[in-house]
């Protein structure tokens, strides 16, 4: 049994890695094969995977994870400004800072569970947002967002003798520019590492303990176990994932804005996880990719595109069709997303992953095992998005 699940995990991991690294190929038919969007798939996938370690395993719903994302971004941009444009120190700094902050927030919030925990985390996130937005403006530059300037110190770069030019330096990994496709591959590799760690956590005794907390925390306590440290670690780890995602956002685009910490951003990662499938390994990534695809592709549709789509219809009907469809694209993409979210939650409470599982059942007739889906299914699922 153990051995079998280990093998299927490796297959899942391999399939996931190949699917992620080959995104530029199979995303082309969907018009999503441009670096910026693929970077977002990887970054928010990582964010959701980390969130799932807390929400999926322990059932504790944090409504404030965007705060860690934002803190990670600010830490990374400050590292670019003060130390070096190399991305590795920035990433390390972000993960550490986000981890420390997660410890502080988690230590207090985890005194309560259920809705009170959610509200506490939400309160912390809103506090961080408001601090970043209008109180700590010397550190965060408020609404304008923290940006690089020519006059930044960049101490390590200075010592290393990197010449100061009249144009802004770019973020790099030992000279390799971290925007465009190299930036995507970098994010993809980090995502794959993050995914691997997530599998290990799911299968570890620690992960089993967390699942125990989810199914019945009181019983866990009766066995003489102190559940708080486990919860706190899960919270810190998922906070570090969020910090890492925030750092990657700054790596691919060195700018940090307070809106990354807003409650809508916190809500978004909850949506991603639920849409993809709570507690599954691949689900959160699929949910993240799904939402980001909608946000970037549907919001860009305008009446010209729609006219092309409905070109085959007669003139009068075409105008009506364009008007009606126009409500659901462009600035109305939230409407489409909301409808799809409702449909998913009502008919597929387990998210996209449940849909994949049901499809699998349909195809194979009777399943041998109703365990986590195999590797190939990740690409099948994406064809829906």
């Amino acid at each position: 049994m153990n051995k079998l699940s280990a093998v299927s995990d490796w297959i899942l991991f391999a399939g996931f890695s190949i699917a992620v690294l080959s995104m530029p190929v199979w995303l082309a038919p969907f018009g999503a094969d441009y670096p910026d969007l693929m970077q977002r798939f990887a970054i928010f996938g990582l964010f959701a995977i980390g969130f799932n370690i807390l929400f999926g395993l322990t059932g504790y719903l944090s409504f404030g994870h965007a705060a860690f994302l934002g803190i990670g971004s600010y830490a990374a941009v400050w590292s670019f400004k003060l130390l070096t444009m190399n991305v590795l120190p920035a990433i390390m700094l972000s993960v550490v800072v986000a981890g420390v902050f997660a410890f502080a927030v988690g230590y207090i919030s985890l005194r309560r569970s259920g809705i009170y925990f959610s509200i506490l985390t939400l309160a912390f996130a809103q506090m961080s947002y408001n601090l970043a937005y209008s109180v700590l403006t010397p550190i965060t530059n408020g609404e304008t967002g923290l940006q690089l300037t020519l006059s930044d110190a960049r101490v390590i770069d200075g010592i290393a003798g990197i010449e100061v030019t009249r144009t802004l330096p770019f973020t790099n990994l030992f000279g390799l520019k971290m925007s465009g496709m190299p930036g995507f591959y970098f994010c993809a590799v980090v995502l794959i590492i993050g995914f691997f760690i997530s599998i290990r956590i799911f299968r570890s005794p620690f992960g089993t303990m967390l699942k125990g907390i989810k199914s019945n925390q009181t019983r866990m306590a009766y066995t003489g176990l102190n559940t708080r440290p486990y919860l706190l670690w899960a919270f810190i780890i998922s906070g570090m994932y969020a910090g890492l995602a925030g750092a990657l956002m700054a790596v691919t685009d060195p700018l940090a804005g307070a809106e990354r910490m807003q409650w809508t951003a916190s809500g978004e990662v909850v949506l991603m996880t639920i849409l993809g499938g709570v507690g599954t390994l691949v689900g959160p990534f699929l949910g993240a990719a799904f939402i980001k695809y909608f946000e970037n592709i549907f919001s860009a549709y305008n009446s010209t595109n729609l006219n092309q789509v409905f070109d085959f219809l007669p003139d009068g009907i075409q105008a009506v069709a364009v008007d009606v469809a126009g409500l659901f694209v462009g600035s109305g993409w939230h409407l489409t997303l909301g409808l799809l979210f409702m449909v998913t939650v009502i008919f597929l409470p387990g998210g996209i992953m449940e849909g994949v599982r049901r499809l699998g059942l349909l195809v194979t007739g009777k399943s041998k095992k109703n365990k986590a889906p195999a590797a190939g299914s990740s690409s099948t699922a994406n064809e829906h998005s």
Partner: protein
Amino acid sequence: MSKKTTSAWSRRDVLKASAASTAIAGAPLFFTRHAYGAEYLNNPGSNSTVTLGFNVPQSGAYADEGADELRAYKLAVKHLNGEGDGGMMNTMQPSSLKGNGILGKKVEYVTGDTQTKSDAARASAKRMIEKDGVVMVTGGSSSGVAVAVQSLCQDAGVIFMAGLTHANDTTGKDKKANGFRHFFNAFMSGAALGPVLKNAYGTERNAYHLTADYNWGWTQEQSIQASTESIGWSTAQKVLTPVGAGDFSQYITPILNSGADTLILNHYGKDMINSLTQAIQFGLRDRQVDGKDFQIIVPLFSRLMAQGAGDNIKGIFGSTNWHWSLSDAGSQAFVKSFGQEYGFPPSQAAHTCYVQTLLYADAVERAGTFEPCEVVASLEGHKFDGLGNGPTEYRAGDHQCFKDVLVVKGKENPSSQFDLLEIVEVTPRAQVEYPVDHEMFAGGDLGTCNNGV
């Protein structure tokens, strides 16, 4: 849980190797995607079309301005492609535009929603550059967004033609070689308003600032404070308010006890509509402080905001880049063709965006190429007329347009729902001009232009 065996490790190595080789084998295909035959990014080459990116706020506090900007862009594309009546293309001098697109290529466009957020705006601009292959991005309505997108365009290597952005920073400390601004700025507002305020309200006033908390608000507050203090006014207090706050009452009550007799609202869009309406509901304008009538000033005014604020704007002073009631040939031609298309007159946001599109197209025609560095060279120092603001110059030193500034006042007896502002004074260019290294604009560097390859 002793599932890890030695065989698992070897399997891992195999997987690692296969994943790595996939990446390495696949990588060259994508690194080189844009590399063929391009001496600049998104070269349209022999395509019959060229794509421009219109990145405007379609949601958030500045959505009204964004919607009007988009209308203007669409109209400009129409005119460039030789459809419609040509609008200001007929009055622009000098003009190399032929009405057959740009360099014979039909103009197409893509749109994006900035959500009035730097992050979303950059994501949307990146999509335009990476996916849609635009050669120029334009748009605005928030200076925070404009500065963020301008620096993105500089790094990516496309031209940025700023839409409505009024902060000094856009062509001050955050100026970029690939970015150009036609709109006026906060310093110019201050310089134009000063003398008018002195005439209207005298030299002994105590001003209270409510300021939108981002780079535009900061620089406007600074500019207006400098200008009012130079005519002898004092400054009671300066309070920062978050953008999109909706309810400003908590910021307005303290004014009543501050001893100030003048309120300066450094707000824009829906924020200005809300704060002004609430200030008047609180009875500020009916008050008397030390025998002086309480006055409100809105340094950056627009007709769209005036429309939103209704009767509340009557008698309030402000400045604006352009107003549809101007009687020069360019303005009239633009108002006519905009009116025919949409049924109402354009706002100043629409005007500046329309003009920017035409100026870009004209610069490309004169340069004979879309190559960003050539376009930059042809825009720098360019002098033109007939676009509604009189003789105008794109200063080479900071890529800011210099032209006359309008001081306006809310009309007491409007003749229509659009006739809300009256022009009090046209401040000549010489009075609002400043050196490139003026202290409110210092600290930046244009850098060198970037072709993106």
